[in-house]
């Protein structure tokens, strides 16, 4: 009887000591989302034998518009990608043609990485698509984190559930696991090198891993991040792809 009382009491205590999950998610969204952003980044794709580094500059406004230009290596240089709502176009300088990516091609990996075009396109706020609950605490690389379990509250979501580890002070996710409806773990993301940029905490290094696939994953390093800038409207037009 005493034991049961103690267990119930400790469970209640734990639930009272944990903050509200939606509040945490809201803070995460505030750090991770912005009106618009300009990133210069390096994507390191680890293959079976070698690794490739692709540098790019990307402009994004909200979660509807995004424009990326690949800067190196020479083979990818000049390749541009435009996303408007649910549509995606790619311009390849070698063929001088614009191709629309849709249907199952959106599920293909981007430049052989562990990211699909769809992964890059789906950047809605977590609070909009998931119901969250805090399930515990854990320390990652010396940082205290809240463990949040997210379950989709809308139907059109890529991952039915997620588990994220959020830094208790900076409210930045340090680890993210995406699950299938069956509960099968599909993808893992590790976020690190958290820096303060224009008053917000932001992870400058992310490692994406498709756990169903062999390989060491894809590393995404942000070399320059600017938020809430003035981005000319023409950037988000098909005409910009051929410029």
């Amino acid at each position, binding site marked *: 009887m005493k034991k049961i009382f103690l267990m119930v009491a400790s469970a209640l205590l734990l639930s009272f000591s944990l903050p509200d999950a939606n509040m945490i998610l809201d803070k995460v969204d505030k750090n991770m989302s912005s009106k618009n952003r300009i990133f210069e980044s390096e994507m390191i794709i680890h293959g079976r034998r070698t690794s490739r580094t692709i540098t790019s500059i990307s402009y994004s406004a909200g979660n509807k518009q995004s424009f990326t230009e690949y800067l190196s290596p020479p083979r990818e240089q000049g390749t541009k990608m435009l996303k408007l709502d649910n549509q995606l176009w790619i311009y390849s300088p070698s063929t001088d043609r614009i191709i629309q990516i849709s249907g*199952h091609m959106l599920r293909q*990996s981007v430049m052989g990485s562990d990211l699909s075009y769809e992964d890059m396109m789906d950047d809605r706020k977590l609070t909009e698509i998931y119901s969250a609950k805090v399930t515990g605490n854990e320390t990652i690389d010396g940082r205290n984190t809240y463990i949040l379990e997210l379950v989709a509250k809308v139907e059109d*979501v890529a991952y*039915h559930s997620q588990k994220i580890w959020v830094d208790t002070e900076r409210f930045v996710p340090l680890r993210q696991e995406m699950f*299938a409806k069956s509960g099968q773990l*599909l993808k893992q993301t590790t976020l690190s090198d958290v820096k303060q940029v224009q008053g917000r905490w932001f992870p400058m290094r992310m490692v994406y891993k*498709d756990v*169903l696939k*062999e390989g060491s994953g894809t590393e995404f390093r942000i070399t320059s991040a600017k938020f809430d800038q003035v981005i000319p409207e023409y950037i988000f037009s098909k005409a910009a792809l051929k410029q």
Partner: protein
Amino acid sequence: MLAFKLAFKNLMGAGLRTWLNVSVLSLAFVIILFYNGMIDGWNRQSRRDTIEWETGKGQFWLPEYDRYDAYTIKDAHSPLSEEIQAEVKKKTLAPVLIAQATAFPQGRMQGVILRGVDPEQTVLKLPASALAASGDTDYAIIGKRMAETAKLGVGDRLLIRWRDKNGTFDAREIQIASIFKCDVPMVDKGQIYLRLDVLQKMMGMENEATLLVAGSGFGNKTLQNWEFKDTGFLLSDIDKIIQTKKGGGSIIEGLLLIIALIAIFDTQVLSIFRRQKEIGTYIALGMTRTEVVGIFTVEGAAHSILATLLGAVYGIPFFLLLGNVGISMKAAQMTDIPISETIYPYYSLSLILVTIILVVISATIVSYLPARRISKMKPTDALKGKLQ
């Protein structure tokens, strides 16, 4: 009749020259028959296999569906009406649900097509009954090609990932219940067959299908919201391949025939040149020029009759042997063309007759062309053997 008698007498008299011409022409005749017989045999086999394994006696498609456009798969699904369900029970219709997925054999990524089929269907030759096993495991059947590319065997487990109708990822392991051998690559390559109800549940598309395959007992009924595609349409790809192959083959056949015909032409020119006195004698004896031209034309054309007979002497045993042993096509099986491991040539009566007519007519034409010169000859000069 006299022309025929003279023609054969002269041909036999020419000895080796005649037999060389006849041999070359008979070779062309046999090769034309062999190649076309092989193509026809392949055509019959691939059509039969495609009907048995893939198309049935026709299919019903939704207007959104296009087999050449993978983008259409996502939206092409519709509930099965009571009328359709009654036909499914009668086993005259086989519903198929199609979905795209990714398989992860040995940690590799491979794009696959999931096809949901009724384990009790008998419309297609597919051994779907292997999917009937109950339990917690989701069983799948795959073709030999798919098994080889994904390095899978019976009893192996395979992780697949797909997106349901809302676009939400799901993943689970399936177990290979059976591996079938099929000569139609579209049925095999990159295809995984699951129970229809299992795939419907996985996709969140209960009681829905992408297409309906009609069996022989279905008749000519129409189904609301579904478009019927007959076998002519469904097999049009095979027809195009066969036409292309026949076109390519006809170039080689044509070249071979031309070589044989040039030899006959050459012989005719030489005959007319060397036998001017004979021509003059015929005319002096009262034959008209046209009759003499006829004798020489028949003589040339008789090469083709002898070639047909000679071709039959060695061609019939050769074709009978091929009909029993077949022609190995293992290398071609790696392509996307429906072709069996061994092709059995098919020689139809029409093929044989058309080939004989082709050889006889072309030999007659090339025999006639040099013989026309006779009509311009002066009989007196011809009798003297003067060059004209």
